[in-house]
């Protein structure tokens, strides 16, 4: 292979190599800086916190702020509203409950008595309007957040947490 940029002795070649490496590192740093700025900016706007119904009762969470909630869907609480387009149900962690409304078609594994995680915002009237209800591949699956919320409120039963081997 021919000497790249064949002018110059060994010394200037080393210096040139160093300078070249410096440029590459600088370019990398500028990129990383840009990326860090993008990341920080995006994280501030798009991180969504999880709250259990008890948390929502205790803390004051501003209406309209995007959050996730989770718990068990209370038996007998599922109702259709507005001719069926909107489903309303109650989510409970044993200690507190929260009324949730969702416009659209619920995931196939959504059932009474099952764990559920929903994303959306609290309404001024204290109900939770979900924009997204998370579905699972597996009907035995308990979202870790929900299991944790149930444990904290003392309503965790090992049976619910029993996992498929």
């Amino acid at each position: 292979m021919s000497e790249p940029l064949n002018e110059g002795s060994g010394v200037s070649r080393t210096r040139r190599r160093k300078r070249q490496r410096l440029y590459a590192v600088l370019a990398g740093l500028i990129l990383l800086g840009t990326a860090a700025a993008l990341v920080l900016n995006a994280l501030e706007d798009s991180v969504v916190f999880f709250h259990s119904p008890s948390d929502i009762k205790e803390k004051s969470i501003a209406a309209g702020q995007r959050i996730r909630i989770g718990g068990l869907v209370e038996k007998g609480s599922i109702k259709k509203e507005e001719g069926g387009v909107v489903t309303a149900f109650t989510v409970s962690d044993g200690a507190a409950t929260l009324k949730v409304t969702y416009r659209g078609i619920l995931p196939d594994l959504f059932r009474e008595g099952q764990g559920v995680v929903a994303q959306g915002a609290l309404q001024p009237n204290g109900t939770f309007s979900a924009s997204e209800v998370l579905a699972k591949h597996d009907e035995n699956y308990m979202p870790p957040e929900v299991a944790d919320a149930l444990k904290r409120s003392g309503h965790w039963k090992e049976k619910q947490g029993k996992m498929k081997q």
Partner: protein
Amino acid sequence: MIAELGHFALTLALAFALAQAAFGFAGASKGRLDWMGASRSAAFMQLILIAVAFGALTHAYVTSDFSVKNVVENSNSLKPLIYKISGVWGNHEGSMVLWVLVLALLGSAVALFGSNLPPSLRSRVLAVQALIGIGFLLFILLTSNPFERVFPAPADGRDLNPLLQDPGLAIHPPMLYVGYVGFSIAFSFAIAALIEGKVDAAWARWVRPWTLLAWSFLTGGIALGSWWAYYELGWGGWWYWDPVENASFMPWLVGTALLHSSIVVEKRDSLKSWTVLLAILTFSLSLIGTFLVRSGVLTSVHAFATDPDRGVFILGLLCIAIGGGLALYAWRAPKMGGGGMFQPISREGALLLNNLLLTTAAATVFLGTLYPLVLEAINGSKISVGPPYFNATFVPLMAPLVAALAVGPLLGWKRADLAGALGRLKATAGATIAIFVIVLWAAGENAVWGALGIGIAVWLAGGVLTELAGRVGLGKHPLGEVGRRLIGLPRSAWGMSFAHFGLAIFILGATAMSLWQEEKILVMKSGQTAEVGGYDVTFNGVQDKRGPNYVALRGLFLAKRGDSTPLNLIAEKRRYVVGGQETTEAAIHNSWRGDLYIVMGGANEDAGQTVRLYFMPLVNWIWLGTLVMVLGGFISLSDRRLRVGAPARKSTSDQRGAEAAPAE
């Protein structure tokens, strides 16, 4: 009996993997050819034994042997044969057996075809492959035995999760695994090179085809998964930035960077230690992907029920592999020395920019995926990071990459003429500006973003065509000569053009889908009509249907667009008899313009059905684009077919001559 045989074969395979590692390392350091030969034989034995184990498990599934726990939990005698077979890897234990099978297969390929590698390098590569195999075989034998029996055996099985009973998902995991595991070869080569202390063009010629193979399969696997989620889940999206999707996307991003940097090592003997680092990182991310999916630490739309012991075990494996790899790198890489130099404006410079942007993008995805885990470990707060984060970080990093991608292939090695390259892109620039203005004017909502997205796709497509036209001398030579040159182009050149052009097609589809998707949710009674995406959709009531292992409620729809023939579309709500799970089958009408997509939700008190109507603009261009990319990968791979077997047989000058000839 056959199940026990399978279990025994796995145990024996572990023993052979240990021998392969021991003889491989010892033989290479002592220079004993007989020991190296023993290591090679062990690699073949390991493959045979794992194939026996895999065959035994498949046998248990096909014959519905319900004394095997894994079969009981994931199969059923009513299930069609293809899903009995795909059920083998549709569960945790079986999928890990598939993982080690692919690993052993690739390891044997190195043992078989590597006769012209330096013997000590090949031996060390095999030894590192064996170490990975040992880790995963131990994982299977200690935490996830697929051959466990149940007594008494139940009369029938619990059936495979119905969402997984789908042709797309029958081949999605094997493709993804060939991708993940394929990067293990690049990893093993990197570790072996660090031990040997030498990376050269011959090394890169070996690593490149393996990386390309893994990349092609991973691209195909990710696209299949996305396609499956689109038509099977019925949520009307194709990418959710879900942690499990990210888990496969991170190795793809870094693997793509590796693919490009290894070109620089091969052609210019530069960026060597960077390429070794990328090889380590790519496989590390594949392992992290496996960990994220298999450990259940993330709340994800994909999450399966899992066992925490397994998570701890994989985490341990992960620490050894990644920690060990990076420690070795830190220790040995500085001794490898630098390579050729180049100006910032050059092909190498462009490839370096590609690498920087791809790895930075991978880092932002990594951060967004793991930040919730880390935060929870630190202060217990539970957060999730969703699509807004990824859109805000990923898209701004990819836009300059795609913009530069049109220019990069036009630059020469070492020192290039940027003005000349841009000059050749005049026609492309004109087309881009024209499209930009048209979209800006024609698109109602999101016009600026749409114009940018579609403009950049046209810019890239134009760049690819310009490069191709330049190679064959379009405009300089008579057409017959141009045609001859077109046919004579090396397949690797075609591969690059296909892959880059596929990306342009993909961007078109992704832009349209993100900005102009139409969606309507309403309650429809029989006879009612609604409009979406230019179609008048009429609901014609429901009927019952019996499938082989499910019962279904079918909603009948009639869609009409202008004066065209009306289309009959059927959306289903299925209930699987054995497990009682319900699934949704969307009614989809495909076209180049976009898909009409209808989901039926369920009955209401007043006898109407909740219906979700979508129009998915240009959605099929997403799959078409990825298909063209995968095709590009395989075309390029076919160019190297001889070189996979014989990397050293051709001398470097032959290579140059062969590639330069058609262009001159």
